[in-house]
């Protein structure tokens, strides 16, 4: 294997084609293993010319049923058993059979080697599209983007899921399906609040994880016991100080972590399940923050790779037409007010943005030079690579959304304030509005503004042991009333009463929910 290209080697653009093929790749509609190999090797060579750096690829052929299966268990090839995945499967299957929904053409797993699923129903042209999209687009994103590098450990995820599956199964056997199921329900309810947003996790292999488990169980229980020590300290003065002590001293964002470490009544196996759920939530956290970038990147590259293949003389017109049709569907952006409009299409936006970055680099206008002085006229491949590696959706939009693209998409920002009767158009795609629109769109992709910010606020250590959570309102947006249901789950995990306070920007509590301690 040749050593990987450095981005600086690609300042002048992709490497040239070694030699033109004498004829097109065969293009029957049915795929075969040999054909997939042939297409794959051509796509690989082309991707290498563009300097895409990927994990090794593992292509797997699966049936539609298996695709739905993977779909239902959050896109992973293996996962622990839970009724909610059964529910997902049923509704996916129903939609698929009714034809309401085309099945995703591909699922790709952020693992090392990177697993891409090819569905057996796909035609050869579609398989080529999927290979370019998933095995080179997504794969290079997983390997390169800082969020994934920092938060996920591609090498160990599959092992960890296998472990999780077996552990949950063992618990079911030991403690009964029902116990485990209700407990998992409760964990799932808090899953979105079970991630560390700022603290960088340590990477552990499965072996380390297992070795630490036993130790951790004993230690954690001891910590918990210490916290809940009921024997009075000797001096009365110390007692008073204890009263004043806040716990936790600082509000904590990771509810599941807090429960795992501090809930008084949990059994060791329950703590381990909390841990499993929160680890998996953490694994998916980057995906939720980089959908536009990730899909856009993959779409940009399948488009570029397959077009290059065509220019080089590998693909027939038929294959081109077929994947282009699918590509066009994927990047279709309905306008507001159209039927089927449901917000910005991440594929469309991401694809448009990467294409736009390339345009700014290669054919900058005066406007571009003014808005992107560093970018305009610089080598495009390194610029794209940089834009893929070092951003998440929020900062990516904030950094790279150009006035031209805002005009092309005719973006406009509205303000919906419940104190006013009307919705106000805050800014549109014009000179005075560009920055405002860009900023608004950037905030829209900030997970913090999409999901309520709920933190562990206080624990009543010496009284009824109740747990108080606090919701920090974002722009005075209230919590949905389903919060009461979620609190029940929180109370089940905590074992005692749980309160939730919703506080506005000034710190005044505007609403409270309370769930009493569950019966033991």
């Amino acid at each position: 294997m040749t050593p990987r290209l450095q981005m600086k080697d690609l300042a002048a653009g992709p490497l040239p084609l070694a030699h033109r093929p004498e004829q097109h790749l065969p293009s029957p509609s049915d795929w075969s293993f040999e054909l997939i190999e042939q297409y794959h090797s051509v796509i690989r060579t082309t991707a290498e010319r563009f300097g895409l750096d990927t994990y090794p690829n593992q292509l797997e052929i699966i049936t539609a049923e298996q695709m739905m299966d993977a779909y239902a268990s959050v896109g992973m090839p293996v996962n622990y058993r839970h009724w909610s995945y059964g529910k997902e499967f049923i509704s996916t299957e129903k939609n698929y059979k009714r034809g309401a929904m085309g099945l995703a053409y591909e699922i790709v797993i952020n693992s090392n080697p990177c697993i891409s699923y090819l569905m057996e129903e796909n035609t050869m042209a579609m398989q080529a599209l999927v290979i370019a999209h998933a095995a080179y687009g997504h794969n290079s994103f997983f390997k390169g983007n800082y969020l994934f590098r920092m938060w996920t450990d591609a090498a160990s995820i599959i092992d960890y899921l296998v472990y999780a599956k077996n552990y949950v199964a063992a618990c079911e056997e030991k403690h009964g399906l029902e116990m485990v199921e209700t407990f998992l329900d409760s964990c799932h309810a808090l899953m979105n609040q079970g991630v560390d947003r700022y603290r960088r996790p340590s990477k552990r292999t499965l072996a380390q994880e297992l070795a630490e488990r036993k130790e951790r169980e004993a230690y954690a229980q001891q910590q918990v016991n210490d916290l809940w020590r009921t024997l009075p300290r000797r001096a009365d003065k110390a007692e008073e100080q204890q009263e004043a002590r806040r716990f936790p001293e600082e509000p904590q964002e990771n509810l599941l972590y807090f429960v795992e470490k501090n809930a008084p009544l949990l059994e060791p196996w329950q703590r381990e399940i909390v841990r499993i759920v929160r680890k998996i939530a953490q694994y998916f956290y980057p995906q939720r923050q980089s959908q536009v970038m990730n899909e856009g990147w993959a779409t940009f590259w399948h488009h570029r790779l397959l077009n290059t293949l065509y220019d080089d003389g590998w693909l027939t017109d038929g294959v081109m037409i077929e994947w282009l049709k699918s590509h066009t569907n994927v990047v279709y952006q309905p306008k507001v007010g159209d039927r089927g409009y449901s917000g910005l299409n991440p594929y469309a936006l991401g694809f448009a943005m990467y294409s736009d970055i390339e345009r700014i680099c290669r054919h900058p206008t005066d406007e571009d030079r003014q808005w992107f002085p560093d970018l305009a006229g610089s080598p495009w491949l390194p610029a794209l690579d940089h834009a893929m590696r070092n951003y998440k959706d929020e900062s990516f939009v904030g950094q790279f959304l150009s006035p031209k693209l805002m005009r092309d998409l005719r973006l406009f920002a509205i303000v919906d304030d419940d104190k006013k009767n009307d919705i106000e158009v805050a800014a549109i795609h014009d000179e005075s509005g560009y920055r405002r629109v860009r900023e608004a769109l950037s905030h829209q992709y900030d997970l913090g503004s999409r999901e309520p910010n709920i933190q562990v606020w206080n624990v009543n250590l010496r009284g009824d042991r109740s747990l108080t959570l606090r919701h920090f309102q974002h722009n005075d947006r209230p919590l949905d009333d389903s919060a009461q249901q979620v609190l029940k789950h929180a109370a089940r995990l905590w074992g005692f009463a749980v309160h939730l306070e919703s506080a506005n920007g000034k710190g005044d509590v505007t609403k409270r929910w309370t769930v009493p301690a569950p019966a033991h």
Partner: protein
Amino acid sequence: MQQIIDRRLAGKNKSIGNRERFLRRYKEQVKEAVRRAIDGRGIRDLQRGEDVHIPKKDVSEPVFHHGSGGKREMVHPGNKEYVAGDRIQRPKGGQGGGGSGSGQASDSGEGEDDFVFSLSKEEFMQVFFEDLALPHLIRTQLAETPEWKSHRAGFTSDGTPNNLHVVRSMRGALGRRIALGTEKRRELHELEQRLALLKSPQTSVDDAVRREIDEVETRIAELRRRIGAIPFLDPIDLRFRSRVKTPVPTSKAVMFCLMDVSGSMDEQRKELSKRFFILLYLFLTKHYEKIDIVYIRHHTQAQEVDEQGFFHSTETGGTVVSSALVLMEEIIRARYPSDQWNIYGAQASDGDNWHHDSGRCRELLEQKILPLVRYYAYVQVAEPEQNLWEEYARLAETSGTHFAMRKATEASQIYPVFRDLFKKEGAPA
């Protein structure tokens, strides 16, 4: 090296465990759907799946999310006419999605739909029979330790020497020898003729001919050697008798369906009776590998008929119930010895009987039939309690648990009757 892995055969039905958990969680709703289906359906299509509706809010998983209200700023594509500072009326439906209300409306409409899914036929029947069990089931006779009988199933290419089938193997060997040797033998034959020609006195002997004779002779020797090298018997020729084991039904059941087809049994009552029999039959198919059904219909005389004749013929006339019981007993004695068969009796009638006959029915049942059967169930498909009901009621008091009687007057009562008759011992009805 990159690799393509074919996963299609692995991991089929991987999500079955999740589905089971889902069904378990919504057991009540599933049961309710099945109950309704059985009430409403025609008899012949009982054995198929059913759609189950569960309100969406019951299957939702709560998470914290923002409610409507507060201040939100949103960006939308496809601006047609707005400029900064424009005011737009808030679309109905609450949380303003932007310029359009129509998309919102359809969204919320969908949100209130039920979560619908289909039970497969197997799952349907599973639920249906769930907490039923045959009364006095002799479990040792049931399929837990099935008896196996081995019988022949053609030939296979491997097996143990004692199963070697010599004739088949030799036939195979012969065929192979012919197939492998034909070409060589033909050539050998031609060469031998050529040699004979060359060696015949007519041919003048010169160097060229001598050389050819040499060549032909070497070739002949070579061919002979190669023909000789074809093995007489090769491992691939061997054929063995294949024997497969099949379970022998150790538990056999016979179900007697007795029905009154006299003039007083109208279509609706027959319909009710039919359901009763079908349900019993389906139930028995779950527990026995082999089930015989004997249909006996009667008015003043009883007669054994086939299924078609049983359910779909119309007769008129008076009623003598005992005639059917007599016939049933005769058939048991003749064809279904009770030490080999589990005998179930199910009788449906509107309770109308020739009044002198009812006492005789009780005696017949008590003395002749009940000792032979595992269970005897009587369903009356009409309300009035006539003398047959009274006689049977006396019998029910004395005969213990393998005789049961109930009344059912409409389709929706059939199912509870059925469950009642065969309810699992100790389980609440």
